[in-house]
């Protein structure tokens, strides 16, 4: 009998993803579903999808899901977690959602140290509305509202969410990862697991930022989109752990 070594995660529904070819959302969804399965927390996890391409995330996650209005994920998640503190609550947000229209909600949920997890998909554009400039668009990047490229004087600078939020005492864990290679995918999965572990240990706010390809709006092939993340985007948004107060991490720091 053939041995099954790879299959669809148990808690991803049998639906076909609506995401474009080469988009990072489907990989991120898969990783979250795998971690939920491995940690055995499926019945006690609630997800909060955003406005944006992932608005239909509830079609894929076989979990309790409650839709947030644009940017309001962490505020909605706050209400869920405060009334159901034994649940795992995650908000899944894009860059426009988290770092523009919802920056206040993100900042203050983090500052209150809400014991929730935010998965932050950063693809440097507003994907669903057609590739307009996002807060994380890098300088000189061309978008449909910065046809000549993002200009620092006119449009300001890319917002570095992990760097910003890691300054807040309420934040337990902030890491930036990407999905451009199997090694990076594995790292991202570990970060997702760690974020849920922070929640389990009631350490406070955890955020995993995932640099994610958007070949459609970047007008690149999926391979070139990954290359662009590795060669350009991750220079602006370094892949790093910006905060980690988990006991293991603290021990490592002391050892150094």
């Amino acid at each position, binding site marked *: 009998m053939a041995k099954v070594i790879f299959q669809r995660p148990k808690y991803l529904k049998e639906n076909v993803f609506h995401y474009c070819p080469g988009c990072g959302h489907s990989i991120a969804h898969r990783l979250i579903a795998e971690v939920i399965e491995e940690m055995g927390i499926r019945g006690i996890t609630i997800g909060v999808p955003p406005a944006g391409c992932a608005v239909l995330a509830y079609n894929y996650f076989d979990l309790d899901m409650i839709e947030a209005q644009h940017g309001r994920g962490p505020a909605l998640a706050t209400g869920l977690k405060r009334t159901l503190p034994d649940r795992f609550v995650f908000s899944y947000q894009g860059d426009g959602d988290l770092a523009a229209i919802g920056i206040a909600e993100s900042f203050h949920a983090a500052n209150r140290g809400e014991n929730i997890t935010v998965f932050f998909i950063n693809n440097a554009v507003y994907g669903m509305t057609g590739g307009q400039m996002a807060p994380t668009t890098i300088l000189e990047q061309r978008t449909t*509202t910065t*046809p000549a490229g993002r200009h620092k004087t006119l449009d300001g600078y890319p917002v570095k969410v992990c760097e910003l939020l890691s300054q807040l005492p309420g934040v337990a864990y902030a890491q930036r990862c990407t999905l451009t290679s199997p090694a990076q995918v594995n790292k991202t999965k570990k970060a997702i697991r760690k974020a849920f572990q922070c929640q389990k240990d009631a350490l406070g706010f955890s955020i995993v930022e995932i640099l994610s390809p958007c070949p459609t709006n970047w007008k690149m092939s999926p391979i070139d989109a990954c290359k662009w993340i590795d060669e350009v985007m991750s220079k602006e948004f370094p892949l790093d752990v910006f905060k980690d107060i988990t006991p293991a991490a603290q021990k490592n720091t002391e050892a150094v």
Partner: protein
Amino acid sequence: MGKRVGLEVTVAVAEAVALCRIDMAGGYPITPQSHIAEHLSNLVADGVLDAEFVTVESEHSAMSAVIGASATGARSYTATASQGLLLMNELLPIASAMRLPICMAIANRAVSGPLNILNDHSDIMPQRDTGWITLFAENGQEAVDLSIQAFKIAEHKDVMLPVCVNIDGFQLTHMVEPVEMPTQEEVDKFLPPFAPHATLHPAKPVTMGAFAMSDYFAEIMKAKDEAIKNSKKVILEVWDEWGKMFGRNYKAVESYRAQDAEILMLTMGSMGETAQVAIDELRDKGIKAGLVKLRLWRPFPFEEIRAALKNAKKLIVTDRACSFGGPGGPVFSEIKSALYAGDHHPAIYNFIYGLGGRDVPVQDFTGMFEKVIADTDNKAKDTYEFWGVRE
């Protein structure tokens, strides 16, 4: 004379706004508005339009930014839809109280929840009482024309109020339609440079948006109400001037085959063109049906409505939004209110339809007529019906 060209309506609107030589535009992406902001950003980047184009972090900030810009005397513009308009809501009465002639396109889209990106009027209806002059376009040409007229109306010294132009999302915004784009010379002739009543200027300091308690607040509310009521005269003058210049005539209320009609239908927005086809079909069958289209929502044209409806035995009012637990659709309650003061009281029916982008083909309009014709009890009714909804 401008050229007749095929353009997506959002692009045509952005081109029209650029012809108005705006100084400032603020925008945040939201479907189905985004192409207006995108095309304005192209025109600025290409050097065609000399304006500030700012991509802000939310619609709340977009409206705040254009309020700031307008206060300095800049001709200011933004566009939004649905949730974005609701997010702006806090600022809308402030723009009108500060008498700032901001112009805005609303690519009408259903309000959540459930989340939907398609067309109805549930976004603009909750803004009814914010003191904005509110116009509805029926097709691409009207969207272009009203967008230009909006600045002239808003900036008139007897008005000085913000104006919004409602353009049905997708059904209008994303259509490629033949439109006659006026030339720059024509728009310059029609629309003089903005001469603000008061601006923030260091040489002559003023306070805008000052605090007012019970001693003055009511007077300011009355002043706003008087201003928007008085704006109708200016709106009609502007339309008259437009008609003379461009040959396209605008009225607050338009009628189609209504002269001898026994049953009238009333629409607002893009549905009027489909309803018109239904009227023709009914007329071919010998049914005396007619259509009345409402273009001006605020200030509400009471006299024109009473005049347009004066011969109808039965009246069908259609609505693209609902006032939950209230008197029916918002247009319906306004029409009833207008008729109450008059002498003529037709039997009146209300259908709420086309919600969240539900398609409304010609046979739905003829179906509404058939249903109303079949009703022999002509008494006034306090009911409304969600048309074509599964039970």
